[in-house]
């Protein structure tokens, strides 16, 4: 309790907690869970976009998409490293992902069904992610905060790139514009769900707020996202698929229609349309690659042995 109070004072003073510092077990566990989920999301997130690399309709877009998916892998790598500073191995985290024990962002369990989705994911999904992540750049845990600064910078580049893809489609042929609208229709609600349940129904939140792991509530962030995104859609001439959406002068923000929480919970519980396919794909990559990882270890071992023998 003494220690907890001291820890809280450091947090309140906006001091960064570093891996070697003492920390409450709950703080450590919360961070391991959250950073791990975040890392897994980056890794699984490579799949829906990876699905279109081989079909990208221009070489410029193909290169940009490849680079984007590579960035996501890179984010996964920093985040696993940040989690490792808390004493959990990448191998263990991977096993948790593949066994279905660890979660990742549900949004990646929706399928990418057209090229327009490569734009919409950048625009909405990365946009929502940034809303969630910018406050994390000031997270109390140092390695996570530093990783997030780099991640956010790249994500906002992705977000602009995604918006530009959608803009090109919206200004393109009627088929392209329809493709963009269809994609917005499919991704809008899942994007809103990325901010989690309404504050009233959210667990974890209070303690995370006190520990400054989290700095805004789900509903606050969702509202920011909607307010930022609606004018962008208008500019593109696309329609947000929410008949109840309207400007609320009093609160200076948009009111939105009801979110389908049944769908939310279904997808969060691992029953999204692509959930099994995602894990199967990662599991296959991992299993098929076992011999490669073993060979790399065996070779490193041989090299070490030869070096010692030569000394």
């Amino acid at each position: 309790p003494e220690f907890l109070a001291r820890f809280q004072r450091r947090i309140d003073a906006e001091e960064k907690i570093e891996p070697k510092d003492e920390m409450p077990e709950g703080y450590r566990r919360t961070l391991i869970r959250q950073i791990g989920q975040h890392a897994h999301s980056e890794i699984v997130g490579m799949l829906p976009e990876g699905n279109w690399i081989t079909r990208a309709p221009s070489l410029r877009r193909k290169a940009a998409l490849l680079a984007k998916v590579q960035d996501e892998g890179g984010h996964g790598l920093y985040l696993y490293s940040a989690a490792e500073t808390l004493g959990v191995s990448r191998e263990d985290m991977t096993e948790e992902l593949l066994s279905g024990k660890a979660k990742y962002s549900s949004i990646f369990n929706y399928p990418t069904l057209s090229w327009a989705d490569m734009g919409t994911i950048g625009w909405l999904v990365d946009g929502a992610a940034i809303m969630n992540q910018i406050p994390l750049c000031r997270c109390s845990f140092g390695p996570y905060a530093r990783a997030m600064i780099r991640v956010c910078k790249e994500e906002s580049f992705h977000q602009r790139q995604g918006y530009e893809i959608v803009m090109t489609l919206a200004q393109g042929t009627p088929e392209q514009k329809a493709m963009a609208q269809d994609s917005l229709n499919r991704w809008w609600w899942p994007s809103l769900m990325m901010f989690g349940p309404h504050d009233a129904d959210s667990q974890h939140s209070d303690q995370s707020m006190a520990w400054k792991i989290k700095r805004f509530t789900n509903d606050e962030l969702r509202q920011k996202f909607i307010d930022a995104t609606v004018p962008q859609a208008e500019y593109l001439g696309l329609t947000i698929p929410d008949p109840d959406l309207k400007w609320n002068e009093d609160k200076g923000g948009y009111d939105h229609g009801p979110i389908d929480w049944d769908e939310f919970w279904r997808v969060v519980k691992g029953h999204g349309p692509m959930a099994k396919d995602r894990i199967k794909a990662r599991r296959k990559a991992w299993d098929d690659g076992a011999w490669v990882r073993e060979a790399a270890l065996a070779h490193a071992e041989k090299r070490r042995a030869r070096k010692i023998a030569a000394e």
Partner: protein
Amino acid sequence: MAVWEALLELADDHLVLGHRISEWCGHAPMLEEDLAMPNMGLDLIGTARTLYDHAGKLEGKGRSEDDLAYLRDEREYRNCLLVERPNEDFALTMLRQFYFAAFMRPYWLAALKSTDETVRGVAGKAEKEMAYHIRHAGEWVIRLGDGTEESAARMRDAVEALHIYVDELFDSSDVAREAEAHGILPVRADLRDAWDRTVAEVFAEAFLDQPKAAYPQRGGREGIHNEALGHLLAEMQVVHRAHPGARW
């Protein structure tokens, strides 16, 4: 002047190999390779873009890089057979990359003296990239060749599967010969020694033998491919072709 067609051959090599390696994206044996593969893919696709663009300009019919990449069919593609071989497994993928880079590195080094400014520009960037590909893929050839029994067997299978596609790298088509005569592109046959040395060095560490192909496979430069290329192109071109004339 058929020089633009010689550039097309080169561009096709880079695009097809770049496409192949990008197929691994999200499915690699470890996260580091999930980063390295798109990295190599980006190098190759980047080079392909500059070459297509230049080829289109030299052709002078207003064809853009995308016209050349997306609107030619299997019989019109001029890549060598090596680069279109399916990924199969990580051993074959890395060996294919290593073979190709071991050829392209000295190629681009020689092309630094090209009489064509764009080619010189590409060469300056690409020779460094190819040096990295040789290092990265070459190290995997060594690790796998001198790793476990399984990995060594897979490397040997990869060598057996790919060695028949090596000789085609050193052939110059008629259009390539013309570009070589003008000092625009390096003479392919001259690069054999450099390739042999690079491969011999790595294979020695990997405990692999480099077999001589009794019956090398050829045909890519005349558009006589293996069956795998058509499937690759079907996928690559599907969206572009479904929307004729659209901008992306």
